[in-house]
């Protein structure tokens, strides 16, 4: 059991490329920390540096208060689950799990007992004598987990451990990973590119982009209070809708309607220059079919009429797609990358920006029909047009 502290950690490759830039992150004892971000954001590099598989260019890595920058992986007492599982193919499941203990020269009875325990937790007891080649993908994944568990290490590092499983198995294993982590209460750093895994698994989530840590917080903090456009766009599925807006006298002029901003949003925004152009973000669930809204709620937001391009029935809800005519979200070049990574700005062929609304199943809205939609002004987010910083971010 140990805490892991990354203090201004930098990974710089010989060609000058910085994969990780000044990463500051504290992972508490027993915490389940998720490192998430699009591919190439430096999350795996960060994990490998914690593991000791990659050198740290500058900064300090402390485990249990001790600086371990120069400590070899084998002396860090950390277990890792690889994306590829990396099982030893010439050993049986039992030998795979016992390998680390054998290297540590543990007594035979202890090895047997620990392997047996781990096998029971992971439901592998009847496969102990088999070789990895004869196991299914899910079983191999569990062996990889087992190899980490038997060691009772200071921390688990997991590098996209579920990404090779099919969708259904992934959901099952996700729950199992969360259960095991809670049961063992071992500090865990888990790398993934899947925001769903990040949201469902972690105590806290650290979101990275281009080697820079964007925001750290509980999944709900990131969801409800994103620090910038990238976080807002990355977390949540379907993603947040972004439209250009102008702020004036407590009113936000959106392409589809004008919204009178409630007091709480105005307070967060602080004093704004009149006529300031910003980007407004609205989550799909903060839209609703206006006919399903009572009068109290209606006063909290604004309504507008639009034609629905497409309505997807999900059973418990509808995803309604509709286009609005809006100018392009003008911004600096940095922002362009940010937006692409966040998947912001989907456009129809006619050049309209496509928004997605999550409507209640009672809605009668159908594809191609004109409907009146309502949006919740209290849940709106505003971002600086140039930097992408969230103006509504509550520190």
């Amino acid at each position: 059991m140990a805490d892991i502290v990354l203090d201004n950690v930098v990974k710089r490759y010989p060609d000058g490329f910085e994969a990780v830039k000044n990463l500051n992150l504290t992972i508490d004892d027993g915490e389940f920390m998720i490192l998430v971000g699009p591919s190439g954001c430096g999350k795996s590099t960060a994990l490998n540096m914690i593991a000791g598989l990659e050198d740290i260019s500058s900064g300090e890595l402390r485990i249990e208060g001790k600086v371990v920058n120069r400590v070899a992986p084998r002396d860090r007492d950390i277990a890792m689950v690889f994306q590829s599982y990396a099982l030893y193919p010439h050993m049986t499941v039992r030998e795979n799990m016992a390998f680390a203990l054998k290297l540590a020269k543990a007594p035979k009875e202890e090895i047997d007992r620990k392997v047996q325990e781990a096998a029971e937790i992971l439901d592998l007891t009847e496969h102990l004598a088999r070789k990895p080649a004869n196991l299914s993908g899910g079983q191999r994944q569990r062996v990889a987990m087992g190899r980490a568990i038997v060691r009772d290490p200071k921390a688990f590092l997991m590098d996209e451990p579920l990404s090779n499983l099919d969708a259904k198995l992934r959901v099952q294993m996700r729950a199992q990973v969360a259960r095991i982590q809670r049961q063992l209460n071992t500090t865990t750093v888990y790398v993934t590119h899947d925001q769903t895994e990040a949201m469902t698994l972690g105590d806290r989530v650290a979101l990275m982009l281009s080697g820079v840590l964007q925001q750290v917080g509980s999944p709900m903090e990131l969801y409800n209070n994103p620090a910038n456009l990238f976080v807002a766009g990355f977390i949540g599925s379907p993603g947040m809708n972004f439209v250009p807006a102008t702020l004036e006298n407590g009113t936000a002029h959106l392409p589809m309607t004008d919204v009178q901003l409630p007091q709480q949003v105005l307070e967060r925004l602080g004093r704004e220059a009149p006529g300031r152009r910003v980007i407004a973000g609205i989550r799909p669930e903060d839209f609703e079919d206006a006919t399903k809204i009572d009068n109290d709620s209606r006063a909290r937001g604004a309504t507008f009429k639009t034609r629905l391009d497409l309505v997807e029935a999900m059973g418990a809800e509808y995803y309604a797609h509709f286009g609005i005519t809006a100018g392009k979200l003008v911004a600096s070049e940095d922002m362009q990358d940010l937006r692409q990574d966040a998947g912001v700005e989907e456009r129809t062929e006619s050049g309209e920006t496509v928004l997605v609304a999550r409507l209640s199943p009672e809605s009668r809205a159908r594809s191609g029909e004109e409907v009146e939609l309502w949006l919740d002004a209290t849940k709106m987010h505003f971002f600086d047009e140039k930097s992408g910083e969230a103006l509504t971010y509550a520190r």
Partner: protein
Amino acid sequence: MTENTPTRKTLWVVAAIGVLVYALFPVAWIISLSLKTPASIGDGSFLPTHATLSNYTAAFDSDFFPPALRNSIGIALITTVLALVFASAAAYAITRLEFPGKTAILAGALAVTMFPAISIVGGLYNVWRNVGLYDSWPGLFLPYLSFSLPLCIYILSAFFREIPWDLEKAAQMDGATPMQAFRRVILPLAMPGVFTAGILAFIAAWNDFLFANVLTTSNAARTAPVAMAYFTGASQFQQPAGAIAAGAVVVTVPILIMVLIFQRRIVSGLTAGAVKG
């Protein structure tokens, strides 16, 4: 794909038998010769009329053939073991480490194998006589090593490349030193390559005639292929063909045993199940 019609099958069988006969006929002839009496060597019949083992007993009763066999086995085994130890270390470094001149080393190794042996054997004779390696075991396995090492490095680096690097990282995380990771994880997985390289190194050392002929002079290091030339008939007018044939058969047996043992270990797909996809 065309179907396996009976005609096709027959053709395949005929072709296979043709190749077998072509390859094995000389071997059968040698065995036949080795069983003939000196008088019937030239009788022209394929099967010996009076089969006898006297050629074999003569070969083993001679004062130079048994020591030569011992030399052959010893020198070939030492060459094989040393070649595998050095080649696996070198190949591992070449596949896993980044260092300047990596490609130059591989190219240099390949160039060495292309060097004609006949061009260095004369110089080597003089050098060996001066440094005292002439007519000794090291005097033979050192040159053999220099020719089989590059080949072994090539084969082994191809096998090491196939092994997922994640396995080594996993071993490191499991607490293995680099040496332990290599010995307990990487090497077992590269075994097919090790055996392939081993067989080739052994055969090359075993079959060599040129170096063994020039660099030896006595029973101290003379190997079996060279010793076979020292068989003589009962009188100077008699051909020693029967004894030579017996020697040739005896020399073939260890190679057959080596290949049969190692062939079973050369199984593909040993890394299956290590990593997904």
